[in-house]
């Protein structure tokens, strides 16, 4: 992966946000074949807080999210340039093991995608993969804890051996969150996690995101401005592949600096 951009900046000299940056992106560009999907995005994502990416469809917010755990690597025509660091380490370094990166940066997808296995096996998948439990007791503990932290345990404790695909949509999504946190990631990326859910299930997930904030760095892509306002501390507004404005959620929603941000949050387009 080439990141020989002439405008490369020292991560240390970046303007310090209020909280220490967990993830820092500098001049990130993404091309899908000929299409320039993401243009010169530079942003700092603080640790132990929820950062939301908002913007109209096709603005590049999901594309950028997928850069943070290099999920775009699975798309052959996708090319990423620029620099993204986590704790100061470049994640596009050729010596970095992308598999280990994804264990540190978990992901929850738009549509709940539990594996067609039992609820237990779904959560145990990551810990088994990475050898995190030495025996069955430890594995049980990880599974139960993860389900508890995803506020799903009470609902499924009597049917851990039943298929994960038999749960309701909201439960499936919480199962996917439990699966993601089972490997103790540092960052959790959520790509429109509530877009396939009804309002009640959405409220539960939002509550969960708020609880998880004390332990994880969370980045959430959302179409719903209300959701961004409810769950996040920082908000970044994307438009046509560029990062237009980034700041505290309160500032973005009450006092946006850019005209386009104002137009979007007041519902003039998007």
């Amino acid at each position, binding site marked *: 992966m080439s990141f020989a951009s002439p405008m490369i900046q020292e991560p240390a000299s970046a303007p310090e946000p209020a909280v220490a940056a967990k993830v820092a992106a500098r001049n990130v560009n993404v091309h899908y074949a000929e299409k320039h999907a993401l243009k010169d995005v530079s942003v700092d994502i603080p640790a132990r807080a929820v950062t939301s990416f908002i913007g109209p469809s096709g603005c590049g917010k999901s594309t950028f999210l997928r850069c943070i755990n290099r999920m775009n690597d699975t798309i052959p025509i996708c090319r990423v340039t620029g620099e993204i660091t986590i704790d100061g380490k470049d994640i596009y370094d050729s010596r970095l093991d992308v598999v280990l990166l994804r*264990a*540190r940066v*978990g992901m929850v*997808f738009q549509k709940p*995608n539990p*594996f067609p296995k039992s609820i237990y096996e779904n959560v145990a*998948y990551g810990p088994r*993969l990475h050898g995190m439990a030495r025996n069955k007791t430890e594995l049980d503990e990880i599974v139960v804890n993860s389900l508890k932290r995803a506020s799903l345990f009470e609902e499924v404790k009597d049917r851990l051996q039943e298929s994960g695909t038999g749960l309701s949509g909201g439960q499936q999504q919480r199962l996917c969150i439990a699966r*993601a946190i089972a*490997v103790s990631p540092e960052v959790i990326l959520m790509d429109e996690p509530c877009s396939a859910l009804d309002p009640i299930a959405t409220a539960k997930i939002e509550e969960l995101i708020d609880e998880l904030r004390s332990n994880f760095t969370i980045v959430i892509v959302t179409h719903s401005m209300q959701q961004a306002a409810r769950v996040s501390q920082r908000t970044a507004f994307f438009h046509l592949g560029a990062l237009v404005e980034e700041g505290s959620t309160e500032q973005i929603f009450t006092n946006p600096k850019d005209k386009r941000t104002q137009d979007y949050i007041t519902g003039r387009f998007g």
Partner: protein
Amino acid sequence: MTSFYYALMVALALGAYFLVRSRAAALASGQTLHSRPTYHGLLAAAQVILPMILIHFAGSIMAARFVEHQALVAMDPALLTDELRRGAAFREIREFAIGRGAANATQALQAGAAMYAYLSALTNWAVLGLGLAVGIAMALFSLRSISGEFRARNRFEQVVRYLLMACATVAVITTIGIVFSVLFETFRFFQKVSPIDFLFGTHWSPQTAIRADQVGSSGSFGMVPLLVGTLLISTIAILVAGPIGLFAAIYMAEYASPKFRAWAKPILEILAGIPTVVLGFFAALTVAPLIREVGTALGLSVASESALAAGLVMGIMIVPFVSSLSDDVITAVPQSLRDGSYGMGATRSETITKVVLPAALPGIVSAFMLAISRAVGETMIVVMAAGLAANLSFNPLDAVTTFTVQIKTILVGDQEFDSAKTLAAFALGFVLFFFTLTLNVIALAIVRKYREQYD
């Protein structure tokens, strides 16, 4: 006469279609029609065609019976009760009537033939006349039923529905018919040979004495050697095709570049199109001698026709079945499951073995089942490469024989249909059918379960 009848029918139907359509169109200019003119026309054509076909079928069958009966009566009324001579006599009458009979025909034969010729012509014309009359009547009826409220569109929908139902029924009835005819002959076989001897006997030698003074043809019908031979060859085949086909499918679905896949997949499927007789002589002339040479060099005794040769080539034959079906089910596993797994930090092979294959497993199992039932029913390769000797042997280097080979051997050439030897073919066929049916039912059940999985 038949082609004339159908030409008339088509002409009448076309006429009815255009006439009714144009009448309906003319009516449409004054008022709103329930159905568009085309539907009035289509319904009219269907109302002409269907009764005419029905009349032709029923009329021809009834006429043929009537003509045969009357011709035989004219020749010699005693023939009617004599089952054996009856068929021969009627064939003679027909031959004579079309001018291919012997010159020295008897008076009776001439009378029969004259009656046959006269009544044939008469009934043909009667069927033609009746069909034509009904067709014209139906066309007129269609013409009269045109009106604004007439629901020709809904009526035509019903016609289509019954037509489709008839086609489905033909397929089902044919299957049932075949099953029952095999079943019937199998019962006849079991009247001559005990089912216990057939199912559990370990000696297969179907030669029975035709005359009392023949020797060495006791006839024993134990199917166990054939079962073992069939299973041995099928096992070898699936051991070859299973791994090759499955791994090829995994490579095609998960690793291959779209460019490679685009030309490699069709080539693999061409393999399924090679006639099995070609694969058969490849097995008999290339693979079998090769195995024998290698075996002899290693100090093993290998028959020149061996289960191994047939099994290997049959395995190659069913590779496309396994790979193509497996490839389809692997590609059908949603990308979101793969993303979920990659997102957890799984490598590609971990994702395939832990998520993709388990999700696709029911489909893969059913692909294997279909491939096995294909191998069990395959004939040509085993005929050419596995031999005819009904050895009860589990050694893949021996010559063995299978159900299909024995059925073919029994039924090739002249035979009488009341001997145990000939009837044994039906019993073998029934066992084979039962075997593949069971495999297919299992495969279908698994596929059905699999379809419910991601929803």
